[in-house]
């Protein structure tokens, strides 16, 4: 069940350009891989959604790319500072699949370390835009790493696999084309994360639907129009 709780920062680790923010989870349930939490962003009106990156004993960790005022504020949090977390929210990955392959691109790898651990270490392919960004690949042990111009879709095996993926929209669309049953984690600007505002609506099956309620994992479906999440920023 989603709950709201004030949580203390226990560590903040730099991983390439990203920060891994580790918090004492208190009584919060870690939820399923692919679910997300709304994190209070100090000094901002709205909280921001982040997939659970790691859920070690007593902790929750989130991988954050400091690309806007809210993410920069989160990456500047000191150890022992406290923020409010709300979650877990949304629908997670189905992990009972026969031949899993995790695929991540850029900050989308954030959702995969917890998924990898919960599934007993399936194979993974991760793509990044630079060697600096690719340092985050170490969060998924044994993952095959590629750096642009090589793309994760260049490295997919020929035989069919059960894809669980999170990453930039062009990557998700290409994976959807190659593997219509892929479980894809989509992203949209979100204000509440619990269905209150209809702000994260994306076009699915000809209708605008709330990604926080229907997703973020849309099994066998995908948004019709580009979400442009990066345009509005975090």
């Amino acid at each position, binding site marked *: 069940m989603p709950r*709201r709780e004030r949580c203390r920062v226990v560590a903040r680790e730099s991983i390439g350009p990203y920060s891994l923010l580790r918090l004492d989870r208190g009584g919060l349930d870690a939820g399923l891989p692919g679910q997300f939490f*709304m994190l*209070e962003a100090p000094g*901002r*009106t*709205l*909280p921001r959604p982040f997939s659970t990156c790691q859920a070690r004993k007593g902790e929750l960790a989130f991988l954050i790319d400091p690309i806007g005022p*809210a993410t920069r504020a989160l990456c500047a949090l000191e150890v022992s500072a406290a923020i*409010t977390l*709300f979650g877990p929210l949304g629908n997670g990955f189905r992990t009972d699949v026969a031949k899993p392959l995790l695929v991540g691109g850029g900050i989308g790898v954030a959702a995969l370390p917890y998924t990898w651990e919960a599934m007993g270490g399936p194979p993974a392919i991760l793509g990044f835009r630079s060697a600096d960004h690719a340092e985050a690949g170490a969060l998924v042990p044994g993952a095959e790493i590629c750096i642009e111009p090589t793309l994760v879709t260049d490295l997919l095996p020929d035989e069919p696999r059960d894809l669980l993926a999170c990453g930039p929209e062009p990557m998700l669309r290409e994976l959807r084309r190659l593997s219509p049953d892929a479980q894809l984690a989509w992203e*949209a*600007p*979100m*204000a*509440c994360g*619990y*269905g*209150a*505002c*209809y*702000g*994260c*609506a*994306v*076009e699915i099956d000809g*209708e*605008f639907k709330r990604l926080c*309620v229907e997703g973020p994992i849309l099994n066998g479906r995908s948004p019709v*129009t580009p*979400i*442009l*999440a990066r*345009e*509005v*920023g975090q």
Partner: protein
Amino acid sequence: MILNASGCLDALTAPAVAQQLDAFVAKTVTLEPRQGNEPPRLAETDHGMLNSIGLQNPGIERFSAEVLPHLEKLGVPLWASVGGTEASDYREVCSRLARFDSIVSIELNLSCPNVDLAAGSASEIVAACREVTSKPLYAKLSPVLPDIARVALAVRGAGADGLSLVNSLRGLALDERTLRPRLGRAVGGYSGAALRPVALAAVYTCYAATQGEMPIVGMGGVESGRHALDLVACGASAIALGSVLLSDPDAPARIRAELACELDTREFAALEQARGAAHRPAER
């Protein structure tokens, strides 16, 4: 009395939040279904947020058949919010809602900043709805009306029982990199902390104009019990929570407790005693 601002809470996805309220105000319903506006629909700004939802709703037929029966099970008094493109739309929707005893009041959304404004004046729309329902009618007004007091008196004359003050302001934000509007429809409704003094002014003005005789639901940037008390002092008889619900689903219970403390500290025995306090002569 604490309500939600229409469109800021879905009682079916968050029943526990709705059950903290004295009444749940449903998302605005229109005669025909509305798909809502193109995404992106949200943009945070330095002092609030912009939304461009565009009254997405299933239309009155599906609302009555598929949404209302579930809302009725929540055990919370229900308010409907009605939108339209002309007076006859509002009238038709109100007429169809009239048969539902579960709906205790109807708010007429006369001021959504995210859709084209309805043809006809606020008082014409209120008068059209008054003909078809005996339920209390609240006129939800925009804070940017040139003379909000005059409109308040006009809707009262047309049969409105109360006022809902205020809707969000029109605002726009640009993407830092592209210098293009961040919202799909460019302009959206601006809400949050920045709206608070605007709401106070509208409530203050309309309370004075109506001599405190009309109930007023005050809303706009309320984040604490103190903010709620300010609206009450200006003339609100009830408070509605909007943007705060997005970041704090526990806000209704928290603000209710904070408001009770504020009243106690100032030795007001009840909310009604604090109502309009800002209009009383200063003690010397």
